[in-house]
């Protein structure tokens, strides 16, 4: 009936491609039927191991950094009412659209080899800035953290609506300071949302392509670059390998989701009142 | 043949029976109430009549026609829901006109009818307002107008006043009853509030656990509840087991329970015995004014008895005071 168009589109552009990717991963690029050789290649070749390791590393770092900043930012928004909070939210919304090629470009202007901050660092003698190399995995984590912050903050803001001021008042009356409240009550209560946001951040970072490509093209060892590289490019396409790499990426995302789910269940005593 | 006949209605959700063999007749032009506690099935029965729920088995006849298999929109039945049923994107006037528009009536006719009905329900000033701009009571009046403007055969009301505050509820009860009688509409009203049912109905059907406990006009149901449940639900009956009765009067009861109304038991002079009455001696435990009724709770040998008198303000008993009560046998009902 009326479900048909929806199912057709979903099937064509979501389900079938997904299935094919998984199937491809088990097919040899040389064309000889079902095989695990793609996975073997990944496990053996240093290039792919590095790519996976780098991707996980940068995703974890940026997600952690992003969520810490986002927590503080969302808390700040929740605790103030005025114009500044509104402005902050507006800027967060604006900047969340910033990711991809434009972001890479802006960072090149800012922290590239001839970048503004680099000049400042050279002039003022701050070696951290002067010697900053954007074009490494570590340099790029700056950019990753940058685009994680708005996303994470916007996701966490609604969660703070669930912190009742009565809890804070109870802790204060019982003699506790604010830091104690957050350590013992606030953060544990918010853990499900924090963990959920963390897993979204992780997936976001793991799959980031445009920003990285704009800076480094294919010259960096990260998972999304390798995946795209096996399908598109000058060299012969290797859909089998690309499929296997894609499966690895999806598995990593799912693992993170399962992990955060499991952890958050630990914090959800007696179910969610929401 | 009654105007509405519901025969052998059974409604099951999976293996749970919500309605068990309901048989119900409704006469034309009457306002009947389906009364009962939550979960008794009254709303389900109403929704079966409307067609929004399908019966598992049984038949429904309206004006001689079998409507059991008919879709809701073909049954010519109007319905007022508990709340939030007005379309938020339309004004009051547009909401009310909706049903007529669907029937493809002419612009002029629609305008005329909307004007009239809004006057009847007292919303002429609010015609161009949106539902979010009017109060809960006004919303329900608009919902009422919308439901009756198409002149349906039956009007169903599913706890329409439950979300309205108490003071407003009384005047809306009167208004609904007035409109129903003026326009001579057959109406079926669902509520859990027994005083509401008493005030509005020509006939009350008391439901409990999916079955009809008793069907009677309000006065009859109040004075002669047929089952224990009815006695506990209607009014404020004093309810006693045979053990308690023995404690109070020293007499033996050959039934399990005995009930009587708090206004039927009276204070009397000591030492007087009357024919066909039970007399008891007790002590005043408490005295609470419920509006115009003064309720005493009297301790009779360890058993509490509620005694209601009109609050005249003159002679009042005091806490701890000794007193004598009498209740006519005919005012007692035993099960």
């Amino acid at each position: 009936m009326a479900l048909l168009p929806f199912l057709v589109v979903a099937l064509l552009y979501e389900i079938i491609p997904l299935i094919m990717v998984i199937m491809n991963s088990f097919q040899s690029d040389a064309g000889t039927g079902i095989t695990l050789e793609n996975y073997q290649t990944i496990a053996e070749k240093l290039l792919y191991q590095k790519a996976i390791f780098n991707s996980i590393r940068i995703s974890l770092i940026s997600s952690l950094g992003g969520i810490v900043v986002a927590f503080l930012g969302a808390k700040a928004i929740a605790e103030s009412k005025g114009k500044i909070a509104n402005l902050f939210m507006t800027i967060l919304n604006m900047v969340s659209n910033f990711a991809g090629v434009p972001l890479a470009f802006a960072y090149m202007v800012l922290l590239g080899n001839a970048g503004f901050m680099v000049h400042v660092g050279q002039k003022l003698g701050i070696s951290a800035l002067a010697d900053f190399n954007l074009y490494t995995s570590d340099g790029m984590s700056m950019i990753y953290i940058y685009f994680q912050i708005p996303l994470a903050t916007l996701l966490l803001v609604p969660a703070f609506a669930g912190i009742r001021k009565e809890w804070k008042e109870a802790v204060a009356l019982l003699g506790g300071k604010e830091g104690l409240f957050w350590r013992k009550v606030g953060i544990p209560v918010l853990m499900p949302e924090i963990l959920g946001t963390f897993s979204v951040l992780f997936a976001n970072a793991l799959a980031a392509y445009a920003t990285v490509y704009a800076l480094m093209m294919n010259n960096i060892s990260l998972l999304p670059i390798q995946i795209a590289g096996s399908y598109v490019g000058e060299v012969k396409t290797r859909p089998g390998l690309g499929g296997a790499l894609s499966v690895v990426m999806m598995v990593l995302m799912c693992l993170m989701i399962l992990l955060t789910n499991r952890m958050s269940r630990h914090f959800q005593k007696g179910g969610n009142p929401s | 043949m009654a105007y509405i006949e519901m025969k052998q209605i059974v409604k099951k959700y999976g293996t749970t029976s919500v309605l068990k063999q309901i048989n119900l007749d409704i006469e034309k032009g009457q306002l009947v109430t389906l009364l009962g506690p939550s979960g008794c099935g009254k709303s389900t029965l109403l929704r079966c009549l409307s067609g929004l729920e399908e019966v598992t088995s049984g038949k429904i006849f309206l004006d001689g026609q079998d409507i059991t298999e008919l879709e809701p929109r073909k049954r010519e039945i109007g319905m007022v829901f508990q709340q939030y049923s007005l379309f938020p994107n339309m004004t009051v006037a547009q909401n009310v006109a909706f049903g007529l528009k669907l029937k493809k009536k002419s612009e002029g006719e629609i305008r005329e009818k909307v004007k009239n009905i809004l006057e009847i329900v007292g919303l002429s000033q609010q015609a161009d307002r949106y539902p979010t701009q009017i109060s809960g009571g006004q919303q329900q009046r608009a919902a009422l107008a919308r439901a009756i403007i198409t002149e349906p055969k039956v009007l169903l009301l599913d706890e329409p006043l439950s979300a309205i505050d108490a003071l407003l509820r009384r005047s809306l009860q009167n208004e609904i009853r007035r409109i129903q009688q003026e326009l001579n509409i057959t109406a079926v009203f669902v509520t859990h509030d027994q005083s509401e049912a008493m005030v509005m109905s020509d006939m009350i059907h008391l439901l409990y656990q999916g079955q009809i406990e008793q069907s009677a006009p309000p006065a009859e149901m109040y004075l002669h509840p047929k089952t224990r449940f009815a006695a506990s639900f209607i009014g404020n009956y004093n309810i006693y087991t045979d053990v308690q009765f023995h404690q109070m009067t020293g007499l033996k009861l050959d039934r399990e329970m005995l009930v009587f109304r708090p206004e039927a038991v009276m204070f009397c002079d000591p030492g007087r015995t009357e024919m066909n009455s039970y007399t008891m001696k007790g002590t005043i435990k408490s005295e609470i004014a419920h509006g115009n009724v003064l309720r005493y709770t009297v301790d009779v040998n360890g058993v509490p008895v509620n005694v209601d008198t009109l609050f005249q303000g003159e002679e009042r008993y005091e806490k701890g005071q000794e007193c004598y009560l009498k209740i006519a046998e005919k005012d007692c009902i035993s099960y």
Partner: protein
Amino acid sequence: MKKKTKATTFLMVLIMAYLLLPLVVTIVYSLFQKWTDIVPEQFSLGSYVIILQDKEFLLCIVRTLAACVIPIGITVCIILLAMFVTTVYFPSLDKYVQIICMIPYTIQGVILSVSILSAYIRAGSFLGNRLVMLFGAYSVIIMPYIYQGIKNGMSAINVKVLTEAAEMLGAARMYAFFRIIVPNILSSIVVSALLAVGIIFGDYVLVRNLTGTSFQNMQIYLYQTMKSDSTKASAVFVIIMLITCLITAVTLYLKNKEREK
């Protein structure tokens, strides 16, 4: 209390500064010809003049925006139809519709682009057409947002009661859904459609992998320009940011208007 407000304000300002820094620096970069020292030199709007007169660039903008319209239209229609069926006839299917709509969250970007590519590159004329693949991909990546928007809109109004009331007044179910429910969730649909515009506008990976450089959207244009002329690229950047900010501003405005109601 005072101290706390100061601290929170300071924190927010700090984060805002961090977020705005690259933006501001690049804007400044686009407005000056020379910037080798701390202070830029030679203020000029020359770059802007050049690109705004570049037909290719203007075509790019149009192309990018046009690419938003079709997928959004498709997705809104199909999800509305699907949710019509699940709300009115089969509520139990809603779970599956939700799962299907949420999957793109995880397979976004790279994986979706390459999987669609490998699936249809050798297919016949219609499915193998690059633009068709692109629009199909876009329709899928915006599904979570459109679905969520429609869902949120529907939970704000009491769908069940409204549909039943319309039914009792004589309306058929489809009439009730499209004439009563949809108008009431229109603002939610518009907000999520704008979100989708933002996403499609900012997409690079799908366009590049599916159409190579044959379909030049704004992001590809920026990428190509930044390899050659960075001053010009920064002007392009600013224009992109302006358009994106405009979209965001309109979205926020509509969201707030909705909340006031």
